[in-house]
């Protein structure tokens, strides 16, 4: 196929990454999947091949560990044979309370969700710039829009990532390199499938994947998904302190 894209997915075993990869496999793209678990990568690769991917490569790697990141990234690109699209999707939800008790865990968590993600995004941006175009998509979170007592460690890491992506987007304005910062709300993963959801705010990984596809096509730099989280977070960000402080979330 003439317009087969070469796609690198960092954190390919996440539910959102997997659903998005299915969309790209259906278009006949060439994919490289990076993650920690060999069996899970193999299961996803087989699925994507059956769905029509031109080729699916895999590599096991702990992305939170950035030692030798530049060399590792170069090796991925060599195997993939170039780069058109990158999705940075890994992350850890973690447990706020245990991060408050244990600062070493707090540091590991920030490393996984921000520090390492910034390193891979910088490498990806550099590669796309050298290739004269392409798209970097990274999954941040609405949690980064305002610090809250229930998850400010995760939120701070995602705020850092959102700002980093915003800066990249600014740097590449007017060029053929696009940077998309994805901010999902609550996502219904298999683990929560039978839990009656508190209201309409829960989305499926398929919906998020569809929104990512649209954002890439429309060259959007920030996308709240589903879209109404833009409104929800506009309100949350602007709640006056006396009201915000009384809220438990």
């Amino acid at each position: 196929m003439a317009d087969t894209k070469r796609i690198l997915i960092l954190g390919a075993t996440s539910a959102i990454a997997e659903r998005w990869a299915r969309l790209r496999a259906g278009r006949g793209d060439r994919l490289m999947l990076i993650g920690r678990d060999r069996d899970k990568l193999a299961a996803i690769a087989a699925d994507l091949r059956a769905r029509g991917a031109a080729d699916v490569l895999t590599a096991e790697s702990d992305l939170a560990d950035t030692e030798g990141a530049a060399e590792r990234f170069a090796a991925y690109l060599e195997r993939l044979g170039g780069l058109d699209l990158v999705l940075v999707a890994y992350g850890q939800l973690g447990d706020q309370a245990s991060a408050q008790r244990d600062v070493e865990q707090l540091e590991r968590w920030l490393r996984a969700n921000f520090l390492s993600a910034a390193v891979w995004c910088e490498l990806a941006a550099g590669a796309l710039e050298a290739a004269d175009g392409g798209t970097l998509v990274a999954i941040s979170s609405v949690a980064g829009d305002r610090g809250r007592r229930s998850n400010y460690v995760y939120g701070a890491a995602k705020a850092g990532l959102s700002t980093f992506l915003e800066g990249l987007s600014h740097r590449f304005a007017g060029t053929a390199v696009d940077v998309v910062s994805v901010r999902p709300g609550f996502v219904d993963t298999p683990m929560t499938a039978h839990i009656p959801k508190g209201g309409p705010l829960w989305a499926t990984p398929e919906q998020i994947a569809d929104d990512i596809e649209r954002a890439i096509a429309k060259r959007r730099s920030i996308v709240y998904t589903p879209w109404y989280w833009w409104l929800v977070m506009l309100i949350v960000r602007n709640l006056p302190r006396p009201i915000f402080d009384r809220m438990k979330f």
Partner: protein
Amino acid sequence: MTGDRPAVSVHDVDGILAWGRVHRGRHRVAAPGWPGDVAAAARASAAGSNTLARGFGRSYGDSGLNLGGGLVDMTGLDRVLAFDREAGVLRADAGMSLEAVLRLVVPAGWFLPVTPGTKFVSLGGAVANDVHGKNHHVAGCFGRHVRRLGLWRSDRGLVECAPDTEPELFAATVGGLGLTGVMIWVEFALIPIAASAMAVENERFEGLDDFFRLSEDGADWPYTVAWVDTLASGSRLGRGVFSRGRPATTGPLTPHRPGGPTVPVTVPGFLLNRWTVGAFNRLYHAKPGSAFSGEQPYDPFFYPLDRIRNWNRLYGPRGFYQWQGVVPPTLARDAVRTLLERIARSGEASFLAVLKNFGDLESPGLMSFPAAGTTLALDFPNRGARTLALLADLDRVVAEAGGRLYPAKDGRLPGAEFRRGYPAWRNLERLRDPMLMSSFWRRVSQGE
């Protein structure tokens, strides 16, 4: 939020509903995201007692529930393992829906060998209920097209079942209501299509004799089914619309589009009564589409109700009962006539009444529902004792004709009556995984 999916955990969940919304209750739920997590999910949700694999919860009664026990939510296991585009063979996780299968295989020129009236069922559910469709007279049940299954059993671990390697366990698993092990994957044969549209002919008929005549005349059509007006009585008894179809021979291979309207809330139960249903039936019988002839996409032909998500909420907070029975060919005319007379006399309104002649192709399944003869499928809003009395009346007609009922649609048949209809039930009980159980099986294998 994003990130790695956590390892298997268990949640107590209240109010899990069967599709008919009459049966509901608390379960310990585990939802594996990977085949390797199934054993842990089964053990964790069983918690020393028992559990049951569940897909999209489209069974109407209690066969997809295990009240007070565990459930393994299989819908996270939805990956394709292998798709042979030349031979038309698909091997996929048991939690993959027929809807997802269609989106994958239709553009490649393949179709499901057999499909029920909704595409929102899992492959595991299709096997466990050995589902049938409008092509039963030429293709038999889904189980006839299954080549191999991956099962996890608490006493044996992973077992690959095929008709030649594990004949007894394979036969018990096809139509085995999910009790012989947790199905991990299914390999089955697809059928080729030249185009995704269906060539369809609909025709009104004015009585049961016409239905049987049209069924015989239409036997060379691969897909046939009839809708009947259960409120018509006297000279109009058994009037309806006969529908037959076959895949178009030319045209594009376009999969259905996901989405469509949804019923957002449960509507008040009085909206579906004999007057509104009667008005609908008169309009449906009279509408121009009832004499339609031409092409239509496969989606509205096979899955008209899928176009309204959560249509089961239309029956109100008390839910509804489905009822489907089959009666043998020699007694079918009289038995179906008696069934329709009893319904018309009761004044209970069945919104969806479907009549079809099954063929005589046997399923490999020990406990498969379809048998040569005529099947009638009905649903009634739950109006308590009145509805149950009518259903018991219909049960007797089926019993006298030597027929039986479909477990996937049942939530109240007396155990003794079930065991009469399915003498092989003891074999299923013998091959049942000791860790697996359902509310349905507790009721029919033990109760009166």
